[in-house]
């Protein structure tokens, strides 16, 4: 007997591939754009765009579609950022995992509230992340670093988030939605 009666698409290889690619889409597009951003395109503020892009993506997907952004993927993305930039390894991994955990914890409230509250929470998260990154890099390199690059990174991340959210929402409703798999 069919335990879940109802109309659904035919399960087959094509359907499974479709579902799998939809689950993989957020992580893969984050990694690809991250790699693209490290090429010398010459955008002003490009070294700060890389962590801003990854942070925004991790926050958005952990909040709205955590099945597409599991903890291992966050770990992998953090490792990629650390290896691509010259930061001491482990810092971005830790910060991204903390953002992931935070987004998961407040998922119930935030996914129901409007964009402004989500942006505010993201801004606060980005500020704390920038400060923590400054502290950790200073600790690991054993010298006091100036705060301006970190603050600039916070500014870029917070300013980029609305545009990022616009693009990611359309992705969230389209290519990254496994429930819409044909």
């Amino acid at each position: 007997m069919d335990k879940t009666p109802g109309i659904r698409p035919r399960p087959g290889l094509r359907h499974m591939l479709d579902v799998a690619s939809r689950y993989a889409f957020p992580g893969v597009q984050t990694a690809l754009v991250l790699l693209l951003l490290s090429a010398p395109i010459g955008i002003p503020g490009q070294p700060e765009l890389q962590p801003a892009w990854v942070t925004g993506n991790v926050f958005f997907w952990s909040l709205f579609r955590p099945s597409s952004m599991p903890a291992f993927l966050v770990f992998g993305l953090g490792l990629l950022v650390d290896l691509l930039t010259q930061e001491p390894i482990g810092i971005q991994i830790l910060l991204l995992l903390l953002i992931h955990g935070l987004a998961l914890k407040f998922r119930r409230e935030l996914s129901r509230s409007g964009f402004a509250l989500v942006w505010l929470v993201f801004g606060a998260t980005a500020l704390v992340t920038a400060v923590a990154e400054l502290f950790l890099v200073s600790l690991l390199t054993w010298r006091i670093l100036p705060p301006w690059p970190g603050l600039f990174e916070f500014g870029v991340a917070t300013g980029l988030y609305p545009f990022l959210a616009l693009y990611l929402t359309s992705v969230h409703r389209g290519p990254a939605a496994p429930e819409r798999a044909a």
Partner: protein
Amino acid sequence: MIRLSIQARQALARLTLPVLIVFSLALMLLGRATPLVPEQARISLSDALAPVYAVVDAPILAVRSAVRSGRDVFALESQNEKLRLENERLRHWYDVAMALDAENATLKGNLHWVPDPTLSYVTARVVADAGGVYARSVLLAVGPHSDIRHGEIALDAGGLVGRVTEVGARSARVLLITDMNSRIPVILEKNRARAILVGENAPSPRLLYVQDGIHPEEGERVVTSAEAGAFPAGLLVGTVHYSTSGQIEVTPAADLGRLEIVRIFDYGLSGIVPPETPGRAAQHP
């Protein structure tokens, strides 16, 4: 798959994040304790990515040169005039250089001068800006059997760019003079005063520890000095510029924001190992 109860599965899922956080902390300590392991990982990643970047670069370069020629069309006449004047000036200096060369040869012959060995260099293309927020370095794509070694010096068409800090099979990383860890002994050309060029992660590095009583002029040329065998003498670094807050900065002669081709020279120096980037302890060559 192992059959677990739902509670066990949920507990395991909840445990994932803390375990990964602890793992990342362990990775931080590991990276500090054994700096070779993350460096190897970085080199392998950049080795894998350098050909990809080189391929991605081609359209970007095409776009950039198209934009440049588009902009040039509007400035043709003024540029022509500027080039004509520069040409006259350069022709004059060419004649002076020829005369000095002849004089140099005669003097060298009289002194039985032992000539310096000719320098070998490798030309490489810059494929990525590999610094991040707290460092300034670039990634070069080099051929698989290149001769580049740790500590060699990178020069642009304009001037000094930096030193090679990591070498892989197909890529190399150059730490720029604007990086925080970069310290270069320099000499001011006019009064031969020594100073240290300190990078600040900003577009212009600062000049510190200038000899007492010396006041550098605005626009004075700064070249490397051969102090402690770290750098060869006489490489052009930049020109002095006083910032608005009165600090002495050096505007780099190389176009560090738009590096495309650099030349890596092997001067055979091993006096001081090049600086390491944040998070890595000093290595022995």
